[in-house]
């Protein structure tokens, strides 16, 4: 998987310092609205007339634009982790450059500027670095507004995914993002309807799960067949597991993704293992099959309850990244964990 590395101890320190510094002025994850604009990851985004030409980076950024009904404004898009949701697939026509689509690499800054966007939405902070499209301050200077999903607010503008602030990973932060982005795109009504739908999906699911016993769930991937990386307490995956009636087996591990050895997975004895499939517009859940087969065949893991009982499941990476899919992700996972309730 790409630039989504975990937090290093040094950046933890930086994050703590940053939070300490920011508490005086409202906190990074808040979205206070004012006449001048909306604060997103410490950057003030003006709330003037809605943008007409949007560039969206990363799966969650792209789908949010479609879900808010601004897909017709999309001039460029980069990185889909999985196939788009069917309801947006018809609008997505890269063959006709609607939008221009960059599947693998960062389009160069020049290439993006040639699309003449007036707004950039990104699902991960890597887009807003010197190696990506430039920092958000630089984009602001040339008249391009921007929005970043707040679970990936960097410690400071221009820092990458390895250097995140101590962000709120609850569903509320996702709802706040969609509401805030909706407001910036002139789609407040759509945003409200979307958030209401998501809340209802989550409430319906939770309603069915009253009193269930909670299996221990580990969410992990294994890029390139190498090391195991588990999603920790600093990732929305933890929120999704808990809302779906599970206990996060690695909830005490801070940060988003943490490399662990096979022995640590054995020690944690997860009842269920979930493997998100990634990365490409044609990579469905089947993309996780190779990792799943590897786990099932590993003789060292044979006693781990999830492996022993055949409870190793594939999901899409897109649904466990903060965005419009999270509510359905909770419903899906709940069905896998508690099939008898549905």
């Amino acid at each position, binding site marked *: *998987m*790409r630039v989504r590395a975990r937090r290093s101890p040094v950046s933890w320190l930086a994050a703590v310092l940053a939070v300490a510094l920011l508490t005086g002025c409202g906190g990074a994850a808040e979205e206070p609205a004012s006449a001048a604009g909306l604060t997103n990851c410490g950057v003030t985004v003006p709330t003037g007339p809605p943008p007409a030409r949007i560039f969206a980076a990363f799966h969650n950024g792209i789908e949010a634009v479609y879900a808010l009904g601004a897909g017709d404004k999309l001039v460029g898009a980069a990185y889909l982790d999985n196939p788009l949701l069917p309801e947006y697939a018809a609008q997505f026509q890269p063959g006709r450059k609607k939008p221009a689509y960059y599947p*693998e*690499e960062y389009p160069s800054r020049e290439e993006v500027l040639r699309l003449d966007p007036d707004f950039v939405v990104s699902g991960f902070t890597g887009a807003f670095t010197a190696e990506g499209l430039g920092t958000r301050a630089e984009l602001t200077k040339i008249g391009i507004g921007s929005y970043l999903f707040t679970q990936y607010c960097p410690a400071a503008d221009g820092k990458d995914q390895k250097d995140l602030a101590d962000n709120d990973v609850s569903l509320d932060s996702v709802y706040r993002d969609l509401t805030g982005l909706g407001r910036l795109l002139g789609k407040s009504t759509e945003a409200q309807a979307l958030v209401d739908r998501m809340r209802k999906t989550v409430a319906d699911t939770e309603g069915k799960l009253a009193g269930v016993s909670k299996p221990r769930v580990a969410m992990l991937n294994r*890029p*390139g*067949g*190498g*090391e195991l990386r588990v999603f920790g307490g600093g990732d929305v995956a933890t929120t999704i597991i808990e809302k779906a009636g599970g206990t996060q087996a690695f909830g005490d*591990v801070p940060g988003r993704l*943490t*490399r*662990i*050895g*096979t*022995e*640590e997975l*054995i*020690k944690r004895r997860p009842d269920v293992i979930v493997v998100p499939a990634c*990365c490409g517009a044609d990579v469905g859940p089947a993309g996780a099959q*190779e990792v799943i087969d590897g786990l099932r065949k*590993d*003789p*060292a*893991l*044979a*006693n781990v309850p999830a492996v022993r009982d055949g409870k190793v499941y594939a999901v899409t990476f897109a649904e466990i990244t903060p965005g419009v899919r999270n509510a359905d992700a909770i419903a899906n996972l709940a069905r896998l964990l508690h099939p008898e309730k549905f």
Partner: protein
Amino acid sequence: MAVAVLAAAASGSVLLGNQTIGVRAALGTWLHPDGSDVQRIVEYLRVPRTLVGILAGAALGVSGVLLQGLTRNALAGPEVLGVNAGAALTVVLGITVFGVHGFGGWVWFSFAGAALAGAGVYTLGSAGRGGATPVKLALAGAAATAFLGGLTTALTLLDINTFTAFRYWSVGALTSADAAVIRTAVPFLAVGALLAVSSVRALDALALGDDLARSLGQGLIAGRVTAALAAVVLTGTAVALAGPIAFVGLTVPHMARALAGPAHRWLMPYAAVLAPIVLLAADVLGRVVARPQELQAGIVTAIAGAPFFVALVRRRKLAEL
């Protein structure tokens, strides 16, 4: 003495880690197997990674001795002469172009790359007047490393998925190979060891300088080719087993020289025993310092190896080869 330390390091590698396993519990894996988690950890995780540490370590240590003797260059090592870089490039090619996954497939690519790069560097270094002088070999190696490394970087930047797969492997870790891969590697290592042993006399003669060696009647070309072949086989296999682990092949020969003196018939066995000690110690350290994470052995050798090497250079005035 050194062998006893190696035995201790190997036991430590089986018993220490994410959780400490008692001697009795570990032995139970073979005496009365019950399929428990502890026994599975010993059998499928700890023992294979210990074997990889011993085999890859010994191969890298001996390979370093061979290359330093061959080039009469105290700073020679698989990483200096382009052998590592060649192995790394072909493995990346294997992943990108041929879609090879897993270490069983990488062995062959690594092997071919080490051999090609070694042969290429040797050919380049032997061209022109004076034949394969140490300086020309080292220069050719440096040029090849830069060129091959550039190609590898270009390939990995072209394809993000490849880069992820490569990044894990490129640091070097003892956890990648399972029993089947280890079994595949053993015959190669045996061939490499045989070649290394048969080049001992030639390396001793080379240490006296080309002219003196020639006057002593040593077959210089044959000796050099044997030693180079041994280095390629050993490095290629070690890289396939554990990735291009840095500093072991460069540093351990100096430790061996401090203990055993300059004669290659002693230098080689000492390096073969010392290098696994270093590698296993690095691996065990990596398991316990950052729990629940594990640092890959290659990271630990790089961090611990660099200052150690600087100290060694300053103490021993390297120009003695």
